[in-house]
């Protein structure tokens, strides 16, 4: 479903930084992939290229058979909005908007109308066990609740692949367990997961474990 061939990402930052080197990777539907590695090894770079948030310097990357590297902004934006979902360590919830409105932003640029967006957002928050916090400002939510709102935002549009960069990085162990349980459930219901983590407990959740060393990806 996701297929990388000879993909690399080099940052031109004075000295070139080879953050991702000549990588061949396939992710099949339903996979639960976890990515580990030391700080600065290139995990986020790999995830961003996978998620089409970043463009590879070389190589070919196809999503469902469509070449993305040459497809242009509009294609990558459409795939990000309609096929992918994202969860970040820093949540990236908008202050001044309710939890429900934050989830709706995940659907804003997709194909659905206003009514349908509200309905999907409500359902997603419901699945995250947050029906009672829908009107709350994220600034008044706990860390765990915030991340569940962020996951609701990522999955409300029923994406096929969910990309998570350190989804439990800002959470204590109880909230980490809650989030991991939610991710497991999403994977069981068919969602493909690609999760970057440096937490061994999170990494061991994955059915497929990748390790990154200085931009080189190794299957474990």
């Amino acid at each position, binding site marked *: 479903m996701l297929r990388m061939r000879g993909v690399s990402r080099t940052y031109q930052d004075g000295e070139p930084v080879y953050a991702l080197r000549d990588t061949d990777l396939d992710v099949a539907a339903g996979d639960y992939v976890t990515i580990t590695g030391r700080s600065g090894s290139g995990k986020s770079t790999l995830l961003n290229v996978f998620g089409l948030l970043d463009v590879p310097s070389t190589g070919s990357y196809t999503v*469902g058979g469509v070449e993305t590297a040459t497809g242009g*902004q509009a294609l990558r934006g459409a795939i990000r909005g309609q096929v992918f979902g994202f969860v970040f360590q820093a949540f*990236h919830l908008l202050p001044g908007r309710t939890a429900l*409105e934050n989830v709706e932003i995940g659907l804003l640029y997709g194909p659905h109308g206003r009514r349908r967006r509200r309905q999907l957002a409500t359902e997603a928050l419901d699945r995250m066990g947050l029906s009672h916090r829908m009107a709350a400002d994220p600034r008044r939510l706990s860390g765990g609740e915030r991340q569940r709102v962020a996951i609701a935002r990522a999955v409300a549009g029923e994406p096929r692949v969910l990309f998570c960069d350190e989804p439990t990085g800002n959470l204590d162990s109880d909230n980490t367990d809650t989030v991991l349980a939610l991710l497991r459930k999403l994977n069981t219901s068919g969602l493909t997961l690609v999760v970057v983590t440096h937490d061994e407990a999170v990494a061991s959740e994955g059915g497929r474990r990748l390790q990154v060393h200085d931009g080189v990806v190794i299957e474990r």
Partner: protein
Amino acid sequence: MRRTRHVDLDQGRIRLRIPRLRWADLFVEASLSVLRHPGRSLATVIGTILGAAAFVASLGLGTTLNQQVSSAFDSRRATEVMVQPETGVTSASWLEETALSRLRRLNGVVHAGRRTVLSDRPIARTVDQAATAPSFPVIGADPAAVRVMAPELTVGRVYDDFQERHATPVVLLSEPAARRLSITRAGVAVFLDDRAYTVMGIYRDVARRPEAMAAVIMPYAVATALSDSTAAPDVLIETAPGAAQLISRQAPLALRPEAPADLRATAPPDPRTLRDDVESSVTESTVMISAAALLIGTVSIGNAATAGIAARTGEIGLRRAVGGRRRHIFLQLILETGALGALGGTIGVFLGVLATCVVSLANGWTPVIGISSALAACAVSTVAGMLAGLIPATRAARIPPVQALQR
């Protein structure tokens, strides 16, 4: 990219749609961003509010003052006409009573009378002081001409038609002349060319013909008898308000129908032209001030918008991650700064109108505020907001999503 495209995922094909612009959604997003962050919004528009307020207040006060100034101009200066002979004209028939009564019959003439201005003459308290006496300009004026000049008497009264007809030797002293001669009451005599004149009154100020301010005034018949080669006779006319221009055109014909071109009538500038002059000078300076105020407002909204948008890179990155396109980001931000400009303009206009009214009422003026300046301030503020948002919005739309999402 085409409007739709398919990606084959293992569970089946997904129809991809290029994220389209939905204006209603954009408006909702922009207004939520503005309304849910009142602090940030206020910081952005404070300059615009002040700019628009200054614009409306300066224009409002400008036109209000203008109205004041021109009504002051209208009341006195615009009711005076003076008729003089052209150089070389010797005939005096236009100064005769029949000519003057023709003039007085004109519609719009309030008073009209003869006057002659003589050169400075020494005036003394006693006959023997004549050699060292101070000199004053002597004005001969019949009672009607005195009424046109309208001296403000502090002592005594003005001579009457009987005294004019009989060339009674009487004088009115201006306050400076009375002071020099140490005269404080009517009834005393002064001497001019060894002849005694009774002081009938002392005046402080004149409404018209300021040359009378430091002079002495005597009956026209008395002054002409003094036989002065420099004497320049003229006719002074007080007109009804607004009639000066018309009377100045008709007076020469009324006074000298056989040769009206021999006479030259001068009226103060047309009050309407005068008002236009004042108006345009007031307007020019206020427009400059207002334009500067609005410019400052624009620059400040630009600065604040740049700072406000820079603080939102995370949000912008997120919007890009969930499928937002560059143009969505750009248009939303432009709508936001435009809405903020409109809002700031409206608040500013309100404050400007308030300021104009408060200042006017405190000074007893009638506030005059043009609707057009209020509308212009709102329109300019809106456009200024959009222009101010142009650079930061363009910049924000260019930020790659990865960069925006780095914490």
